[in-house]
C-alpha cells in the first residue's frame, strides 16, 4: 500500500509534528508513504471567504498533483470536506469536462486519516501507547461533513494506557471557523469560552481532535488561561509507543 500525504498548508507551517507523526504511524503499519513536494493548499480559505476563482485554481492544482496517487491521506477533516463538498461545485462553474472527470476519478481515493486507518487499512488497534487522560473534540467537519462517527473513538479506545473522558456537547462548534475567528472575533471568542468550559470540565490532560485548526483555537485560549491542559492532534497519540513516546512541542 502506497499513500501520498497531503499535509495541508497550515499543518506544514504550524504543526509539522503532526505530519511527522502521520509518517511514523503509517510506516509502522506497513504503508509506504510518499510526499509530493509541489503541494501547497486545498483552497478552503479562499472558498470560504468568497474568493471562488482563487479557490478554483488551487483546487485544480491539487487534483492535477494527485491524479496518479494510489491513495491520498489528509490529517485534516476540514480540508477533506473542502475537497469532497466544494470541488465539484467549483469545477461545475469554472472547470471543464476533463477536469471534472479527473476529479471524479480521484475523489474516492482521498482519505481523512481516521478513514484511511479504519476503512482502507482495516485497523483499529494501531499499537499505540499513551498513558494519559484524554478527551476527544469532534470537529464540525469531521462530525457532519465526513460523518466520521465512531472511527476516532474506536481508534482511541485501542490505545494502551489511554483514559478517554467523554466531552459534553460534543456536537457544539468551538467557534474557529477560519476567517470567522477574526472577522467575528468577539462572537468566536464567546463560542470558544463555552466550549472550553466543557473541555476543562473533563479534567483531561490532553484535548485531541483530527483537526489542528480547532486545536489551535482551543489550545491558544488554554495557553492564555494557563489552564494546564494541552491540545494534541490524534495522529501524535496514535504514533506514540512505549519505545518512542509522543513528540510534544510548545
Amino acid at each position, binding site marked *: 500500500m502506497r499513500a501520498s500525504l497531503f*499535509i495541508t*498548508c497550515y*499543518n*506544514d*507551517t504550524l*504543526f*509539522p*509534528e*503532526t*505530519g*511527522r507523526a502521520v*509518517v511514523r504511524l503509517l510506516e509502522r503499519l506497513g504503508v509506504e508513504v510518499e510526499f509530493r513536494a*509541489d*503541494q*501547497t*493548499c486545498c*483552497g478552503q*480559505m*479562499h*472558498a*470560504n*471567504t*468568497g*474568493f*471562488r476563482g*482563487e479557490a478554483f*485554481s*488551487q483546487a485544480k492544482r491539487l487534483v492535477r498533483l494527485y491524479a496518479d496517487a494510489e491513495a491520498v491521506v489528509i490529517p485534516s477533516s476540514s480540508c477533506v470536506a473542502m475537497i469532497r*463538498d*466544494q470541488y465539484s461545485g467549483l469545477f461545475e462553474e469554472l472547470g471543464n469536462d476533463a477536469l471534472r472527470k479527473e476529479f471524479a476519478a480521484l475523489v474516492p481515493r482521498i482519505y481523512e486519516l481516521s478513514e484511511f486507518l479504519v476503512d482502507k487499512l482495516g485497523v483499529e488497534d494501531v499499537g499505540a501507547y499513551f498513558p494519559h487522560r484524554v478527551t476527544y473534540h469532534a470537529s*464540525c*467537519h469531521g462530525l*457532519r461533513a465526513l460523518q466520521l462517527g465512531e472511527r476516532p473513538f474506536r481508534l482511541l479506545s485501542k490505545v494502551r494506557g489511554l483514559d478517554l473522558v467523554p466531552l459534553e456537547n460534543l*456536537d*457544539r*462548534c468551538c467557534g474557529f*471557523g*477560519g*476567517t*470567522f*475567528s477574526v*472577522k*467575528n*472575533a*468577539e462572537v*468566536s*471568542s*464567546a*463560542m*470558544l469560552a*463555552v466550549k472550553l468550559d466543557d473541555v476543562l470540565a473533563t479534567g483531561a490532560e490532553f484535548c485531541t481532535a483530527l483537526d489542528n485548526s480547532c486545536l489551535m*483555537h482551543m*489550545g*491558544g*485560549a488554554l*495557553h*492564555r*488561561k494557563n489552564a494546564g491542559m494541552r491540545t494534541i492532534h490524534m495522529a501524535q497519540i496514535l504514533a506514540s509507543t512505549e519505545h518512542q513516546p509522543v513528540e510534544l*512541542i*510548545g
Partner: protein
Amino acid sequence: MRAVAEHEVLAEHEVIDRPILDPALAPPFPVAALPVLRNLQLRRNVAHAIDVIQAKRARLVAEKPDWQALRASASRIKDEALQNLGAYLEQFEARCAAAGGTVHWASDAADARRIILELLREEKADEVIKIKTMTSAEIQLNPFLEANGVRTYETDLAEIILQLGEGEPSHIVVSALHVNRSQVREIFARRMGIENLSDEPEALTAAARNYLRQKFLSVPTAISGANFLIAETGSVAVVESEGNGRMCLTLPRTMITLAGIEKVLPRFADLEVMLQLLARSATGERMNPYTSLWTGVTPGDGPQKFHVVLLDNGRSSILGRKTEQQTLRCIRCAACMNACPVYRQTGGHAYGSVYPGPIGAILTPQLEQMRHAQSLPFASSLCGACYEVCPVKINIPEVLLELRARVTDQERKQVSRFFDSLYLGLRAANVIFSRAWLFHAAQRMGRTALRFFTRKDGWIHALPGIGAKWTQTRDLRGLPKQTFHDWWTDRQRRTK
C-alpha cells in the same frame, strides 16, 4: 502579559442601546453583536430557552423512524411548488376567489402596506387585532398603520410582551425568548395598570387574557400571516400554540392575511408531511395545539370578508438561482437558530433583521437584493448544525458560501477594499499557493517576521493589525523552525 478578559475587549467598542431590525439601517453583524455579548443576562436567557427547545426537539425527532424520509418529501414538495410558483399562485388565487376571498398582489413592502391600509380604510377600521406574523414585521406594518391612525393589537403572548414593552423580536417562533419572567411582570404591570402583579406564569397569562378578551370582543378587523397556502383548494393554514390566533380567525368580521409568495403548497395532502415536521422542529411538540384552516368565506361562520395579500418583496429575485433557491423552502420553524452556536451567543438582535439566525443570514441579504446585510453571510463558523436539523433540507452552509462569493465579487471591485488587510492577505495567499517555492519563501518570511513577536516560551501573545483580532483572547504558538516539507527533504537526504 495579563490575560485580557472578554468584557474588557468588548468595552473598547461603541455600544448600541436599541436593537435595529431594519437591514438598511442596522450596523454590520460583528458590531451589532457587541452589546448583546456584553449582556450576560440576555445571553443566559437565550441559551437556556434554545437548549430546552433543542432537547425537546431531539427527543421527538428520535421517535420518528421516517424522519429523513419526511425531510426528503418536504424538500421535494417545496421544490415542486417553487419550480411552478406562478402557476400554483394563480391556482390559489382562482380557488380562493371562487370561495369568496379576494387576492391582492404586492411587489414590495410599500405596496403591501398601502394595500392593507386601503382595505382597513374601506372597513373604516381604526383598530386591528393581529395574529403573530413575521411577514408583517418584515414589511414594518405596525409602525406604518399606527402612523396612519390605525391602532394595532398583537395577540400572541410573546408579541404582546414585545409590543407593550417596546421591544424587538429576537427569534421567529418564540420572539421574546430574550425577556425573562420578571421583565414580563414589569411590562404588564406598567402598561396594563395592574398593581401588585406577581411574576407567576398563571398571574401573567391571566393578565394577558383579560387584556386580550376585550380586544377580541370589540375589534372587528384582524390581520394574520400564513404558514401555508394551498393551491389545490385556495385554503390558508395557520399553526399556533395559544389559541389566540383561533380567536382572531373566528370572531372578527374581516380578515386580511399577509403571506409571502413562497408559502404556497401544491396540494392539501402536502400538509400531512409539513405539519409532522413543523411542530417537532419548531417547538418540540408532536402536534401544535391549534391548527386553523380556512377557505374563503363561509356564510354565517367566521369573517365574512376575506383578503389575501401575496407579498414578493425580493422573493422572486431568489427564484431560478441554482443554489440560493432552496432558501425559499423555509417553513419558518426556527430549528436552525435553536441549533446555531453563533445564535446561542448573540440571540436574534445582532442579525439586524426580523429574520435572525442561520436562515436570516441567508434570507435577509437576498431579500435586500444584496444591497444591505452583507456581513450576515460571514456570521457563521460553517459548522453545519443548521443544515442537519432543517426539516426542508436547506443546505444553509452551501448558500452562505454562495452569498459570500457574491459579496466578495461586489466588494473586491471597491477601491476602499483594495488595501483591506484581509483582502490583501487573501490575494497574496493566492499567488503564494500557486507555486511551491513561493509558498516556502513565504513560510520563511513569516517565520522571521513572527520571531519578533514570539516570547521566550515559544508563544505569541500579541499581534498587530488583523492578528490582534486573534490575540485578543487567544495565544498563538510561534512558528516551528522546520516546516514538515523541510523535515521530509532532510529525511530523504539522510536515508539516501
